[in-house]
């Protein structure tokens, strides 16, 4: 088991958002977390990544056999947990190159590997730029500054490719993307799928899942997973919306 979430409860500003969430992710699996606005989707992503604004009030999370909640955000990242942000942050004056070389070397240190110098890093990055069909000047530009919405999301995928994480959490990566950008992002993700790498795709709409086929689909509502299934569950949601499932859950 790569990730095991048990009865996770979390709050922000004293408001309970996650109310006992369970989730298990095996290596190589792709899980989609779907749900209406305010269900706690982004909270789940943030809590797993270790954002300080959220307070975990109960439950346990095991990542690769370790207590995840005990680790600082950078330690989680170094151990292979990657978050693709809903709103990737701009860092003026810091080039993608410096940013990612620093990040890659932090990961390498954790894995007991020698740091990459500028030349090695350039070569390594070029490979990934080609793999993802990104603009060649990507490395020279400041982190996300002057990037379009689509470019920012793709830059996150590029970072994912460089850092080679074990678990990728994608927080509403599809929000604000037009269909072309969506396809590009999905192609990037698909290029990075492997037997060892798992994904948690958090999304409101089913359309991203047409491109990134999940093995499991979960419906998140009111801080809990109320229904799980295969890809067909996503199709069902597309057809009927969340109301029916929510109603069933409330009646039960």
């Amino acid at each position, binding site marked *: 088991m790569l990730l095991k979430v048990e009865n996770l409860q979390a709050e922000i500003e004293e408001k309970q958002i996650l109310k006992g969430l369970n989730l298990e992710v095996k290596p190589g699996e792709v899980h989609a977390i779907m749900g209406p606005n305010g269900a706690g989707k982004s909270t789940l992503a943030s809590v797993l*990544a*270790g*954002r*300080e*604004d959220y307070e975990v009030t109960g439950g346990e999370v095991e990542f690769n056999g370790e207590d995840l909640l005990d680790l*600082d*955000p*950078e330690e989680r*990242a*170094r151990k292979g947990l*990657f*978050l693709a*942000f809903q709103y*990737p*942050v701009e*860092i*003026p*004056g*810091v*080039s993608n190159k*410096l*940013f*990612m070389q*620093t*990040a890659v070397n*932090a*990961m390498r240190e*954790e894995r007991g590997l020698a740091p990459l110098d500028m030349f090695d890093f350039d070569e390594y990055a070029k490979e990934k730029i080609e793999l993802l069909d990104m603009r060649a000047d990507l490395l020279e530009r*400041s982190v996300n500054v002057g990037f379009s919405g689509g470019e920012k999301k793709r830059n996150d995928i590029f*970072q994912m490719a460089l*850092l080679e994480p074990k678990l990728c959490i994608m927080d509403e990566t599809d929000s604000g993307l037009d269909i072309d950008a969506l396809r590009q992002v999905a192609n990037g993700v698909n290029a990075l799928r492997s037997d060892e790498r798992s994904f948690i795709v958090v999304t409101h709409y089913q359309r991203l899942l047409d491109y990134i086929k999940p093995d499991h689909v979960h419906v998140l509502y009111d801080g809990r997973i109320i229904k799980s299934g295969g890809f067909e569950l996503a199709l069902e949601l597309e057809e009927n919306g969340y109301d029916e499932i929510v109603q069933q859950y409330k009646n039960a």
Partner: protein
Amino acid sequence: MAEANQMLDLTRQGQVESEYEEINEILKKKFNYREGFETRTQVETFEKGINEEVVRAISAKKNEPEWMLEFRLKAFRHWEKMREPHWAKAKYEPLDYQDYSYYSAPECGSCGGACSTEEGGEPEIDPEVAKAFAELGVPIAGDDANVAVDAIFDSISVSTTKREELAKYGIIFCSFSEAVQDHPELVQKYLGTVVPYHDNYFAALNSAVASDGTFVYIPENVRCPIDLSTYFRINEAKTGQFERTILIAEKGSYVSYLEGCSAPVRDTYQLHAAVVEVIVHEDAEVKYSTVQNWYPGDEDCEGGILNFVTKRGICEGKNSKLSWTQAETGSAITWKYPSCILKGDNSIGEFYSVALTNRRQQADTGTKMIHIGKNTRSTIISKGLSAGKSDNTYRGEVKIMPSAEGARNFTQCDSMLIGDQCGAHTFPYIEVENSTAQIEHEATTSRIGEDQLFYCQQRGISEQDAISMIVNGFCKEVFSELPLEFAQEAEELLAISLEGSVG
């Protein structure tokens, strides 16, 4: 550290959780001032206090000619009638000028400091002083090929390297005191022409008690082959340092001049009131770079250096150029506006500045660009970084005189806040008296936010590395103007000065 922990607990109890709690917590960590050591050596220090007798005694100590003493006395009498200015955005109690000593020098054996004027070659440097400079990484033995150094310890210059080599080009590079002895005609011609003794309170004080400083003269059409540099060190407690630097670039010449400074850790304010005058003639260019790392004081900036400096240059001839580049990280209070008087037609003035304040440091710094000649151009790039509980102010004036046909100015002032208890202020004054002038002014304020830090952390980058990466990115435009070794030093200094904020 115990205190810091206590404070932390109190905040927790009080449930006062701000968005910047974590940054503020890091900011409380102990600050590390690497240059804070003290040198113990035999010194001759004047009794505390200032009066006409003291001014005369300083002059006598330096064997000065009558005209220099007259200059001092005129300035002193004027200073006595002036009031300490408090218009800067910095709070401090009025200073007790009688509580400072106005002359201090390491004794070199029998001759008691006056030996530099005696015949018989180079005086020996006090080994303790030499050790201090070695520790600071200042090459006073002249073994660094790329730079000539004038090393100033408290009130006197202890060593000036590579003078013979420079003399071959006709370049004069010596201490101010020596210049008064050896090149009186040049000193008399330029002293007080750019910064008159009555210019302001601290300039007047400096003119009265000027200790030492550097004198640079670059003859016509000479391109100075190496960087010239001065390193200022204040060692004695309760001593003021009042250096006077004059730099003259004759027609068609070029020089790059650097200055650095530091002081030991003390528990009372130390005063540093320098005056720098730069004269740039036709077609000449001067690059003047400063890395200022005076002791900023303790947690509350008690005991730090009060850095009240008047730096001004005149682009006298046409097509002349003067660039000021400064990285200001030290001092409890900085009050400093390196300025350019653009008198010659087509002359160019530049000001590139990074000012970092942390803890309770206060910096009020900027520039003045006075456009007199036709088609004169000036560029101002100022980057202010405030962390801790500090205040960082940019104050600048761009003045276009009626004669300055076609003058242009570009100003960019960027401020960055680190944490939520610091302040950034911008006071740009623009006065245009010629309608053909073009003035551009841009200003931004940003904050290193939790969002940026979390983004970096999520990529495996520690909080400290993230802050220094963001800060260096912010300052890049200015650092690229500094000479190479200096740029590196400035970057390192920034990292150390942020240690209080970065951990």
